[in-house]
């Protein structure tokens, strides 16, 4: 299987070296696989997600996407738009946009997608997530589960090859959680992409192909999920 993301000897320090968040991470994320990133709070999971998603820059080390160094990418915003999808722990929907507009907003900077196609893709995803009836509602007017499903739809609408999710099911009920995880699995299979999920939730870890455990900014183990191997 092709490796989509390669992380080589990644370090990240904050406050002039007082806080060492990542301490020499080396990792490969392969196409078609879901990775669960587990570890205690503060072990560096979110930092790793942010660095892979180009939301922050590493202190040292390198990240390659499909064999290309990210520090050689001309426009990181275009790179994020075309290849990366984010799901945050809290939905972070734009409060003044409706659910449909929020999903459309992820496609807004892509001039290749017409307004009609943008709308159709947003509506289709909202339908798949079971929240089409909320398409014209603002985030404040819908439930937490619906908001998180909206946030997943927004992250998936661009068909990103790499989906980075930080505790995507942290604040929602188990039924919605299962729906979201199923959708993530479908996405990986349809796009041959990869998903890296930072989580404490064992249900999430159960659907992952690989479970990566972190401690103090280091990867302490990386194992194939036996349950997924059986399947």
């Amino acid at each position, binding site marked *: 299987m092709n490796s989509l993301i390669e992380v080589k000897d990644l370090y990240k320090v904050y406050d002039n070296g007082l806080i060492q968040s990542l301490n020499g991470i080396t990792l490969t994320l392969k196409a078609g696989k879901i990775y669960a990133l587990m570890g205690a709070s503060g072990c560096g999971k979110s930092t790793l997600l942010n660095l892979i998603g180009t939301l922050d820059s590493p202190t040292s080390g390198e990240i390659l996407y499909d064999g290309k160094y990210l520090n050689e990418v001309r426009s990181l*915003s275009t790179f994020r*738009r075309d290849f990366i999808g984010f799901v945050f722990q809290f939905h972070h929907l734009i409060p003044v*946009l409706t659910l449909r507009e929020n999903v459309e907003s992820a496609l807004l900077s892509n001039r290749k997608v017409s307004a009609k196609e943008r709308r159709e893709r947003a509506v289709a995803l909202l339908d798949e997530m079971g929240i089409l009836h909320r398409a014209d509602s603002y985030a404040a007017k819908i439930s937490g589960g619906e908001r998180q499903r909206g946030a997943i739809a927004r992250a998936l609408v661009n068909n990103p090859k790499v989906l980075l999710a930080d505790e995507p099911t942290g604040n929602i009920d188990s039924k919605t959680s299962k729906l979201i995880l199923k959708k993530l699995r479908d996405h990986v299979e349809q796009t041959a992409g990869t998903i890296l999920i930072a989580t404490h939730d064992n249900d999430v870890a159960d659907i992952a192909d690989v479970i990566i455990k972190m401690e103090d900014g280091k990867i302490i183990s990386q194992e194939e999920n036996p349950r997924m191997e059986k399947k």
Partner: protein
Amino acid sequence: MGAIIFRYAFRNVIRTPLRSFFTLFSVALIIMLYTVLTSIGNSFTQQISTVIKQQDIDVVVQAKYASTPVTSIINDTTVDSIIHLDGIHAYDSMLIGRKRLYGKSSVFILGVSNFTVFAQRLGFNIIKGRALHNTALEIVVGNKMAGIYHLNVGDEVELSSGKKYLIVGIYSSWLNFLNSGVICSLKDAQHLMNKPDKTSLLFLTLDDTTRTNEIVQKINKQFPEMRAIESQQLPDYMGPIKNIFYFSKIVSIMTLFIAIAVLLNTFIMAISERTREIGILSAMGWSRFMIVSIFLVEALLLSLGGGIIGYLCSYPVMTVLLSKFANISMYIPEAPSLAIFFNVLEMSLFIGLFSALFPALYGTRINISKAIRHE
């Protein structure tokens, strides 16, 4: 893309309704002030400049140290000496001043040596009654003044104690400021303003206009207490025109700065409050240009909205000024001009772009991961 960005910006404006209302209100107030003051300034300078152009005269003489025609005093003996210089074809003189009417506001008095000549030059049109025949104790009044004081042809007005002046006509001039005044003979004006044998301005028509410069120099040399100038240079020498021009410019610049300060404050707050939102948009791949454009559209909605409201509000304000301040009504146009409207649009555009651009550019220079965690 544009439609969503516009909707996004518009909803952001109404997201904090009270703040947006007060920003809009402040911009509207500032622009209204600008429109009213600029309209008055423009009206005044335009009217004075047009009067001078219409005069059909070659040389104007006024007292050297007078800052305005009202403060200029030329003695009859000096007038007599000047008009007998070689090359002078004809002359007219005028006394300008103010007189308190009924102990209330003061009115503008124009004493003219020859009403017919000045009526032609200044574009007077007798709309009621007859013209002035240089007869003592007769006056014609401007239609604006007649309206304010409820005067009519045949009425008698006591402009000075014990002397009543008969209104023989009501005139209208396209020069707005003249419509708020009284015109009488030079002799009557000298008496009314207690300036016997004096005039304010002397207008000379020459036999040969190629000698204008020579005659100007001759007068300035022979009469050092006088200042003779070629008529087309008159606006440059007139204190009120210069002052109003500078006043107008200072008001414009101050208006611009105050409006920018108001909007700048609003946008620094708005951008600081929406740091996380900026981070989310950046994470979704929005370019810096797209994020900045939202703030620019928001700023333009507020500045153009405020500008247009301010301009429209200046109409009733001018009407109130016209009715309540009779003594300056001569300078107040009935409505702001279309040119000022376009000027307001330009200013609003500049105010909006300038005040949002810098906070937006600064606010989008962020560490995205920190911005997303921002509370």
